[in-house]
């Protein structure tokens, strides 16, 4: 209603201005009345404002007669201040109005506090696109007003337009506006959002503006200090800018100090990290304020290390305080740390304790992070606290920045892994199953497990093995490495030996027959020799192979009873003392009792030996021992030598010796030195094994032949062997030796093996 009235009055006034005289005066009166009825300039809407702007322009351009004295000025003073101010400044250059007149209106404008109304109006306008230039222009006009006026009046301007008067006035005006702002619109920081950026711009390189600004904030009444400071802190992009705007406000105003060092740090916790950084950075930038920074840090640490605070304050606040502490720490200098090292240490210890007591993982992590940082700061050379928590702080990323934790693997709780054992493929437990697996199984894992398990299975089940021994021996002889197994050859050989020793006669019969049969590789034939030799060795030994393994139990040793006066131990102590004080004159090792048992090779030696020696001179299509396969012959000769050696004290030894001598005789001119070496080996083992009386009685001729062969070419090992032969014969004649039941462990004759 009132707005409509004003609109009508403005239209009529525009007409009235053209007619001048009484009508104009009446029209202006109507406008003023309508403006008052509308609630004053501050209540005008955008449309009315534009209309009023146009009206003021036409008023300024109207002839003197159309501007009744005393009334038209009021229109400018009562109208919306922004258009009024702009129009007045524009008309300063206008010929229709005397500059003096305009300046008078401007003077009144300032005196009547329209400037603060103007600022207020600008602050109230919502920020619009395009209004930036307008504001720029307006600010320019406000700041340049003294220059404009003095230019127009050529220096004869009223005192209020002198810069030394005008700018303090302007500062005061701003304070008024600020008061109004914090008074009426508490918390509406948008207003500061406009003021602060402009101030930032203005103070950038202008120390006068800086001082104005300092004064401006200093004069903010205590009641509104908090809102203003908070606004400034939130609006400024960095601590240096804030320092420029606020100056040493916190040192001068106790209220501001309280707000900055207490309220914003300890009581509030909703501020962003950027605000915290601004605030603490501001404190750190000036030496006067640094004392406050240290004080703030101390207070923060006090809160941080208070177990009550840790227990009762919300985690968000604790995080906020932690952030503040970290920021403070980053600002501290070496000397400052030095001065409060002890306090820091005390707080840290207390704080760590109460944080680690917390049941919330977040709080524990916070405690660890802060403690680590403090520790790193105060112990520049000593050991530092190190929890395995990593923290990345994103400080510069704006409002949503916060502490980002990236934990080590510790937040992933492992499951029970005790069942994670080495996989053992279940090997068959019966010999017959083994045969099945070895002959036709496609599962390589199972096959591998069987190969590995076979030997022990054979040894544990001799009865079952005997039932299938030849079949098993056959399979093993033909067994090929289907898939790579570490030590396959050895595993197979051990299994073969186990089979042969378990059931020697049939298996030996089989193997020796196979040695001379068709379609075997040289390698297989040599395998057969190896197996025969190893088995003979095992059989001829006492059953130590398997039983002595268990004798390695630790000897009972005496433990000194430390401080134990238990009566149970008295005997041990006494024994010990006796042992210590008794001198023993016997030296040397205590006698190792030799294990003894029947020589199992005795009954089977012939089965090993004779089939091998019989057929060497019958060439087969694939196997010619006397021809190109002389390497196998060499091995055969050596094998025979070992068998001969192992046959000591057996019944068959005499017959074996005789056969061996004939064998040696037949081959004595063999071209291959390895074979001849083997022959010498044979002779030496024969000399060891065959009793002297047999040698001299039963095989005198053969021995003499051999002797002549050995004597024929005195080269290499032969002379030694000849000597040995003679000596042996002699010794054997002279002394009836009680031969040990078992041969020495390493047959010397096997040296070539």
């Amino acid at each position, binding site marked *: 209603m009132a707005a409509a009235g004003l609109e009508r009055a403005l239209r009529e006034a525009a007409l009235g201005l053209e007619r001048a005289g009484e009508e104009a005066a009446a029209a202006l009166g109507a406008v003023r009345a309508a403006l008052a009825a509308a609630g004053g300039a501050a209540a005008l809407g955008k449309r009315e404002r534009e209309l009023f702007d146009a009206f003021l322009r036409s008023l300024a351009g109207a002839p003197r007669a159309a501007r009744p004295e005393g009334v038209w000025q009021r229109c400018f003073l009562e109208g919306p201040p922004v258009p009024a101010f702009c129009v007045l400044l524009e008309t300063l250059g206008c010929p229709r109005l005397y500059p003096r007149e305009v300046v008078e209106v401007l003077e009144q404008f300032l005196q009547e506090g329209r400037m603060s109304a103007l600022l207020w109006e600008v602050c109230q306008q919502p920020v619009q696109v395009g209004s930036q230039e307008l504001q720029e222009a307006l600010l320019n006009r406000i700041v340049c007003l003294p220059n404009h006026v003095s230019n127009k009046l050529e220096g004869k301007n009223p005192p209020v337009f002198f810069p030394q008067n005008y700018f303090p006035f302007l500062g005061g005006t701003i304070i008024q506006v600020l008061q109004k702002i914090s008074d009426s619109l508490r918390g509406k920081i948008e207003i500061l959002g406009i003021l602060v950026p402009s101030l930032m711009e203005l103070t950038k390189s202008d120390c006068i503006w800086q001082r104005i600004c300092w004064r401006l904030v200093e004069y903010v009444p205590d009641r509104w200090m908090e809102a203003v400071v908070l606004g400034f802190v939130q609006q400024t992009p960095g601590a240096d800018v804030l320092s420029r705007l606020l100056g040493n406000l916190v040192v001068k105003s106790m209220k501001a100090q309280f707000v900055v060092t207490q309220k914003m740090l300890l009581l509030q916790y909703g501020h962003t990290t950027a605000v915290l950084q601004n605030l603490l950075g501001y404190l750190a930038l000036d030496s006067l304020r640094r004392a406050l920074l240290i004080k703030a840090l101390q207070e923060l640490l006090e809160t941080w290390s208070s177990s009550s605070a840790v227990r009762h304050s919300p985690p968000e606040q604790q995080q906020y305080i932690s952030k503040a502490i970290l920021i403070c720490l980053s600002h501290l200098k070496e000397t400052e740390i030095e001065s409060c090292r002890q306090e820091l240490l005390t707080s840290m210890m207390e704080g760590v304790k109460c944080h680690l007591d917390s049941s919330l993982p977040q709080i524990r992590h916070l405690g660890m992070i802060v403690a680590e940082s403090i520790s790193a700061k105060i112990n520049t050379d000593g050991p530092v606290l190190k929890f395995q928590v990593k923290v990345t702080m994103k400080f510069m990323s704006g409002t949503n920045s916060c502490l980002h934790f990236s934990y*080590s*693997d510790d937040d*992933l*709780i492992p*499951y*029970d892994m005790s069942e*994670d*054992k080495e996989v053992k493929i279940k090997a068959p437990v019966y010999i017959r199953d083994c045969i099945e697996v070895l002959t036709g199984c496609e599962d390589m894992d199972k096959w591998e497990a069987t190969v590995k398990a076979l030997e022990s299975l054979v040894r544990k089940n001799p009865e079952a093995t005997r039932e299938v021994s030849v079949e098993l021996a056959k399979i093993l002889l033909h067994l090929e490495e289907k898939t790579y197994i570490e030590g396959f050859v050895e595993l197979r050989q051990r299994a073969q030996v186990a089979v042969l020793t378990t059931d020697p006669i049939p298996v030996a019969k089989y193997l020796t027959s196979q040695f001379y049969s068709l379609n075997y590789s040289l390698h297989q034939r040599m395998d057969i020799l190896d197996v025969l030799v190893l088995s003979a060795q095992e059989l001829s030994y006492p059953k130590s192979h398997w039983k002595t393994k268990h004798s390695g139990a630790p000897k009972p040793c005496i433990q000194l009873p430390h401080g134990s006066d238990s009566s149970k131990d008295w005997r041990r102590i006494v024994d010990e003392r006796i042992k210590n004080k008794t001198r023993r004159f016997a030296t040397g090792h205590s006698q190792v009792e030799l294990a003894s048992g029947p020589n199992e090779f005795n009954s089977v030696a012939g089965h090993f030996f004779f089939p091998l020696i019989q057929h060497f001179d019958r060439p087969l299509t694939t196997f010619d021992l006397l021809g190109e396969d002389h390497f196998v012959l060499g091995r055969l000769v050596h094998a025979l030598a070992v068998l001969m050696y192992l046959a000591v004290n057996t019944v068959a030894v005499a017959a074996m010796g005789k056969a061996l001598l004939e064998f040696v005789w037949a081959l004595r001119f063999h071209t291959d030195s390895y074979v001849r070496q083997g022959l010498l080996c044979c002779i030496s083992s024969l000399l060891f094994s065959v009793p002297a009386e047999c040698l001299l009685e039963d095989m005198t001729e053969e021995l003499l032949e051999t002797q002549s062969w050995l004597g024929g070419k005195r080269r290499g090992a032969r002379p030694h062997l000849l000597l040995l032969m003679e000596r042996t014969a002699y010794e054997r004649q002279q002394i009836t030796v009680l031969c040990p039941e078992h041969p020495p462990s390493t047959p010397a004759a096997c040296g070539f093996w």
Partner: protein
Amino acid sequence: MALPPPDPQFVLRGTSAAVHTLHFSCGGQEPDVPVLFSGSENGLIHVWNLKTHRVDTALDGHGRKSVYCVETMGGKNRLLSQGRDQRICLWDLAEGRTAVMDSVFMENVGFCRCSLLMVAQGRWLMAMAAKALEEVQVLELPSKTSVCTLKPEAGAKLGMPMCLKLWQLSGGSQPLLLAGYEDGSVVLWNLSMGKALSQLACHQEPVMSLDFDSEKAKGISGSSEKVLSIWSLNEQQNLQVYKTHNLVNAGISDITIRPDKKIVATAGWDHRIRIFGWKKLKPLAVLDYHTATVHCVSFSNHKNPRERLLAAGSKDHRISIWSIYTQT
């Protein structure tokens, strides 16, 4: 007392052959059903519906020869599969089609899985073992133009490439290739220069699988030995051994780092899936479900981390699906 390891969330049966490769496609919006692709020894690619746990489609494109690599090319409608018939097939599965659009003939007969990297919208690079024994070829897809062939220096004796991983730091930077070779070494290749930047002897045995975390510049590789090797790439682009981890049983057939880089899973010859924390390779779990060698492990790409799944395919014809460490 640590909790006992979890059981599989569910088990997919019915491939009726050993499973050699798995690939999830779960990133789609509703009502897109999350699916799992599996490639098996009988040459079929099964498309598993993860809502119903049933096979939606079985794709037969490799002449009944084992399929050992399956990858999607941006969404579940475009599929790449690699088979022992020496073909890499590109499938069009949109609107229920099951057509092989295109295929690449590989002249290599090894077991090396190819590696795929999207370099731009609709443009992929694919690395695969080339015809010559030691070489790797990189093609651009879908154009199939050869980008480069990576030849080791004469006398390097790397042996065949066993596993490949194409990667790039962030969008736009030039793609690099990590290749594990028969002699146990891992080589970093620059594709534009066709030159080896760095070589590291990680294993004594052929490298069976590797994965790489480009954020941490750290990778992991496994071989037929009892050791996992973790190596890092420094700023001079040199590979260095970071640490090794000893396993209880020998043989790793596949290694995958979860997309969020929190955990890593290995597929073991000992029938077990092992889970480690990726940061320090802290052992977290041993999942013992399968009764034969585990051939492949794969993590799903669910948008919601809580729904993330782990799948493992085994020689025992089964695919086990696990939900593990989803709360982190």
